[in-house]
């Protein structure tokens, strides 16, 4: 078994903390994990890409070979489209519906949504709204963990446990909001 996820978003959107929850959960379940991140210049409001690889065997490459990923998990609508060549046939694209507009030539939203909807296996999540309903827009990335969770080779309980541990030092309320956000995303 191997499960490769391309994580996409814009610098500052919490892509790495999203990745960390899934990675730690997979490790808790005894899987091998590699997570390749982007630091430095690219983080300044630019497109960010992380590779998360889960397997029950040894993982050699830190980078996912193109044509082999099972999922693109994106915090941002446009960024969901940037790395499609990494996907294997039959893979999933799970993306937040919300645009992050910091470039002058950002596409028309309706057009963008229809392109994403046209992808086989696409799931578009109204993540910011769900996070707000759960109690904080800052939990948007946990909505996305929830949205991805039913496809991941990791149990729901393990993900929830890791969310609890990760946010514990911020208090019970923050933990509850993030767990709620996760459940909302899981649907």
């Amino acid at each position: 078994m191997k499960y490769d996820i391309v994580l996409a978003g814009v610098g500052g959107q919490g892509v790495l903390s999203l990745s960390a929850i899934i990675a730690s959960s997979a490790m808790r379940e005894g899987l091998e994990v590699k997570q390749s991140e982007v630091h430095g210049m690219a983080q300044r409001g630019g497109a960010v890409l992380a590779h998360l690889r889960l397997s029950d065997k040894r993982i050699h490459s830190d980078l996912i070979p193109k044509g082999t990923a099972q999922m693109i998990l994106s915090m941002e609508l446009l960024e969901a489209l940037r790395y499609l060549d990494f996907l294997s046939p039959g893979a999933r694209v799970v993306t937040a519906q919300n645009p992050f507009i910091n470039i002058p030539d950002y596409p028309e939203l309706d057009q963008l949504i229809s392109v994403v909807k046209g992808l086989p296996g696409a799931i578009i999540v109204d993540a910011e709204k769900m996070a707000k309903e759960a109690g904080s827009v800052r939990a948007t990335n946990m909505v996305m963990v929830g949205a991805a969770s039913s496809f991941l080779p990791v149990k729901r309980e393990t993900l929830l446990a890791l969310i609890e541990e990760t946010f514990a030092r911020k208090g019970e309320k923050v933990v509850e909001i993030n767990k709620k956000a996760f459940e909302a995303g899981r649907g």
Partner: protein
Amino acid sequence: MTEMVLLGDEAVAMGAVHAGISAAYAYPGTPSTEITEFLIRYAAKKGKPYVAWSANEKTAYEEAMGVSMVGKRALVSMKHVGLNVAADPFMNSAIVTINGGLVVASADDPGMHSSQNEQDSRYYAEFARIPCMEPADQQQAYLMTRAAFDYSERFKVPIMLRLVTRLAHSRAVVQLDQGRDENPLAKPGDPTSWTLLPANARKQWRNLLNRQKDFLAYSEETEFNTLNLVGEKGGIGVITSGIGRNYFLEIAGSTDCSYSHLHIGVYPVPVQKIRALAAHASVIYLFEDGYPYIERMLKGLLPQSIDIRGKESGHLPPDGELSPEVVRAALGFEALPSPEPIQFKLPTRPPQLCKGCPHSDTYEALKAALAGFSQTLTTSDIGCYTLGALPPYKAIESCVCMGASVSMAVGASAAGFHPVVAVVGDSTFLHSGVTGLMDAATRNANMTLIILDNQTVGMTGGQPTILPSSRLKQAVLGIGVDPEHCQVIETHRKNREENSRIIRKEIEYQGLSVIIAVRECLETAKKAKKN
């Protein structure tokens, strides 16, 4: 045995801690920064080792040499181009007789994710005639760093640890052993081995050359260099180095082909092992991230019967980083099928200055101040503010190396160009711009220097600058800049017109002027508020 999830950089840091380092020095630079960031967090909890950001890579290196001279172990880390700055102590530290283990971690950036070139540090190690170790994964990053300190003391040379971006910034589980204690203080009995007067240096140099055979013997025996011959003679051979191994194994594991494989993690290259592979194979592929360093060595200049395939032969692209795809294509396999490409033009999303960044206010004010001149030159430097070269600002016209904005402006003004403005960040100024300003002050160069004082090293994640903002003006005046023409402005949207007027006035002044544009980085301020 314990386990930790670590970035490649962090595995180096833990390796150094467990090797018993007493001190670590660095100047921030992607992709090496996280080594020192990790050590700072570690030392805050455990009380040691001593960890510090230095003014630049040269001072960092020299501080580490001092630690070594008195018998203790030191790690010095930098990005690849930082080694250019530290090249003087680096080259000469090879000649002295290293006392406490000295390891220099140099993090290369093939593909230039966050750098101005993709120079390959392995050439530096060979240039200095010292061994180099190149980990393939996070576990090796830990093990090799530990081994490098022992190696350094055993052979009394500095050891280079070469990293690349994809290892530095990738996370995996690392198995850790028990740590080793620090060395006791022990000054060398014979100071001539550290005093490179020509008579001593000749002796030391010969001594280093005499040890080359020992380095080679270590390369032949170390378990970091592994040779695995398979099948009949005349088959396919592969040489990998560093993370090239991972991409090769990934691709080879998905095929039925068998390859004889030599992995090189320690340099000088193991000659006997290479010869053994060459005797067994008729074709050798080279997968190394960076320059075709081993490939060129193998190829030499004269015709040969063996078919060597790599970057020089055109089997891999000559530039950029290695990837599974590049290795796959080189080995002759077709690309894997991926979904139909979409018929939709994706706009790019380059990095950009944060909304409300003080640099953007300075750039707006500067552009207004330069309006109306028939020609202008604005040199600049390395940091977040380099993004001012991109739209919508398009405010700067150069970015070459740390501090060059200042010295290039000195040159351009001497050539007769006017107006010339140099724009440099506070940390870059203190790193290497301050020497250029001495030249400018001595000659009263007809130029204006703008120091962007955001009170942090922004691009690498907000490390403290070596001098606080409050001492920057004193430093500038101490060099001899006319106090009448050293202005401190608060760079802010609300002051833009006034600031533009001040900048214009100083640009029109025939002589050297310095403007310090002050306002704290938004990210640093946000972080400070959080803590």
